[in-house]
């Protein structure tokens, strides 16, 4: 697969639309058109806000995942990690209420905890992968089980709920916004823009792509392969923490079913966006488009009336495949 696409990106080939680049965008536009056609409320402020805000969690995580995948890695643990972080955050905030009282103080501590725990979780993944040199798939499959178990255990099998008072103070972080734009959307946009800049404009982004392309070449070119790789996992961990900060005020709870399959969704978004699964090439804006495509599919399925809701998954599957058909790899030039 890597071979074919190599010959295909010869630029300035004429005025045809380069589907390899614009495929995801075309797919997204098609979905939007479909949604608008199926339901007149689709483009309403309310629905657009809903879709964008709920994309934020996966979106923030997927931006981090883009870096991990670009540098040739993978992280299956993010969904469980989010659940675990949410659990720890809620427990600590609840624990602090008696001493600190209800207010932003507690919430800020909670946010800090989320980021620190995310950092630590990413560090653990990253160290196991770079220092113990275990295949990323296995490490993160393992930590996925571990985080999931820990949250189940912390919640005693049930649900951890945030203290009611704190919740009321914290709620606006999900539901309110600035100038009519909800906070999760703002944060997602900020993360995405920053991610895009880091990927394209900084040595770090360049190094990620170099490592994913050819680790040896990177090594011989004075790239700190292990350090950069470790940093991608830490970055992802921190972003999972940020995603969790936006998630907790939404329902104010965490349980063993929080974040299930987020990892798959995040990875799918990254790849739909055009990042190469085997590493070497990544684009954050593509990931954002991928996330929106996935969210829209769910939204459209809910807005439209299908023969049977049992078939939602099938339609979802078909659309995912179709979305990528557009940017499929060209046949090798001969």
């Amino acid at each position, binding site marked *: 697969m890597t071979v074919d696409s*190599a010959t295909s990106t010869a*630029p300035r080939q004429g005025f045809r639309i380069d589907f390899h680049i614009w495929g995801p965008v075309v797919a997204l536009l098609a979905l939007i058109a479909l949604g608008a056609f199926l339901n007149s409320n689709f483009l309403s402020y309310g629905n657009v806000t809903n879709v964008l805000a709920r994309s934020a969690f996966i979106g923030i995580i997927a931006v981090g995942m883009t870096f991990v995948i670009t540098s040739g890695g993978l992280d299956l643990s993010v969904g469980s990690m989010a659940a675990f972080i949410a659990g720890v955050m809620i427990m600590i905030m609840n624990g602090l209420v008696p001493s600190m009282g209800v207010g932003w103080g507690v919430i800020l501590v909670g946010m800090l905890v989320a980021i620190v725990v995310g950092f630590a979780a990413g560090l653990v993944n990253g160290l196991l992968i770079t220092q113990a040199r275990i295949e990323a798939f296995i490490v993160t499959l393992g930590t996925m089980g571990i985080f999931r178990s820990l949250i189940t255990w912390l919640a005693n099998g049930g649900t951890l709920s945030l203290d009611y008072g704190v919740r009321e103070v914290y709620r606006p972080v999900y539901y309110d916004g600035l100038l009519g734009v909800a906070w999760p959307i703002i944060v997602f946009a900020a993360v995405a823009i920053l991610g895009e800049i880091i990927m394209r404009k900084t040595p770090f982004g360049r190094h990620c792509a*170099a490592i994913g392309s050819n680790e040896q070449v990177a*090594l011989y070119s*004075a*790239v700190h392969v292990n350090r950069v790789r470790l940093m991608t996992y830490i970055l992802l961990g921190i972003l999972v923490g940020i995603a969790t900060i936006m998630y907790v005020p939404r329902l104010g709870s965490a349980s063993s079913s929080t974040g299930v399959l987020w990892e798959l969704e995040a990875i799918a978004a990254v790849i739909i966006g055009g990042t190469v699964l085997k590493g070497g090439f990544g684009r954050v804006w593509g990931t954002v488009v991928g996330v929106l495509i996935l969210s829209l599919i769910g939204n459209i399925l809910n807005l439209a009336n299908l023969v049977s809701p049992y078939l939602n998954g099938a339609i979802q599957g078909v659309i995912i495949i179709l979305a990528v058909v557009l940017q499929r790899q060209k046949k090798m030039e*001969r």
Partner: protein
Amino acid sequence: MSALPDKPAALEVKDVRRSFGPVEVLHGVDLALHSGEVHALIGENGAGKSTIMKIMAGYLTPTSGEVLLNGKPVTFASSEEAENKGVILIHQEFNLAEQLTVEENIFLGRELKRGFFLDKKAMRAEAARLLNELETRVSPDARVSDISVSDKQMVEIAKALSRNARVLIMDEPTAVLTTREAEVLFRQIERLKAKGTAILYTSHKLDEVARIADRITVFRDGSRVVVANTGEMTEDQMAQAMVGRELSNLFPPKVIPANAETVLSVKDFSVGSIVTNASFDLKRGEILGFAGLVGAGRTELMEGLIGVRQSAGQVEINGNPVSISTVSDARRAGVVYLTEDRKGRGLLLRKSMRENLTLLALNRFGRLAIDSKGEDKALGKAISEFDIRAPNRAVLVGNLSGGNQQKLLLAKTMLAEPEIVIIDEPTRGIDIGTKQQIYNFIQNLAASGKSIIMISSEMAEVIGLSHRVVVMRSGRVTGVLSGDEINEDLIVRHAMGLEGKVAA
């Protein structure tokens, strides 16, 4: 020999054009290969040699023009079809699956079978036989990723020989071979020629061409400029036909610095089990050649020095002990290394020239954000300074011609502005015109006070350029030659271990 038989050519192309995107790289070329002849194709880097060879062997289709096999037009739908008709190409770039063993690679796609199953015994025996014939000592069971560059080339050759070719096309087979290995190859070529195989062959080593070719075709910028029988052209004439200007004095005069201080001092340096207790000094403004047979451990020694291999020993730079454990430590200490393994360790083939050029020296283009204007400027400078010929600036490096990749690698290394440059096989695959430019470049670099270590398997290069020569054998330094001592005889004697005993 020159009286060609009436028999149609074994393989012929007529008026072939080929474009990549909007750029045409072959402008209607003709070329005929006859059974039992060795035909050399020469030309500058990027002249289109590899492209025409790929077209002849079915790897690329011509945009227009025709290919004739035994006088009959053919269109090869795939390289497999060409191969089935006896047309085999040995690629300029290695075409081996790294994770597979030597034997697996040699028989890939052509496995010998007994019933449904692989006949491993027969394949191993046959592989061993082929390698033995090529005097290559690598085991058929070795993984390709573990063997040296020249062994890989021999495996490629063995792979081609196993295919029973009627037309054998070889794209710079000797670029990574030493003289001795090349001799082995030439004997095989003679043998095949006697059997009536038609052989097309490129090389930038013109002495080789003069020796083994029967006829010569010269390409310049995608067109054929000369066809001649070998006797009709001298090496100088060949060079001139290729480059379009006269080439005098390949090597610039040596300017040996007097009483320069030592910038690099290496003592009792060992790398794994491959290099043992190597010691040498490098002076400011000096070009220090490293000679030795393949496998002498020169590459490993340098890789140890720059911190990509585990090493032990003392290294001093400008009199201060340094400890280098990563490439960026080395870069910070002013030492950079240009690898001999262009494809595996040198360049990102699926990235553009710009990203490749600045990767090693990226810290010079802004800590926080990359200064892409600066990068573009650097690329412009590199393109003109190193005469890199690319269809456009955005081309993927993997699509550059081999020689131009090498130039880009050189530019990449120099961009780090090192005080000490270690160059491993600097002119591998580079045309004679550019070689001269590179030699001048190296000489100027030294003259400007930088110090250079040059590993080369080309004796002429070592002799023509080096101020002093370190000779290695089996991971040990067997001699350091200077002045008049730098001659082929002494170097070979040290490299073979004949002189070492006396010296010790």
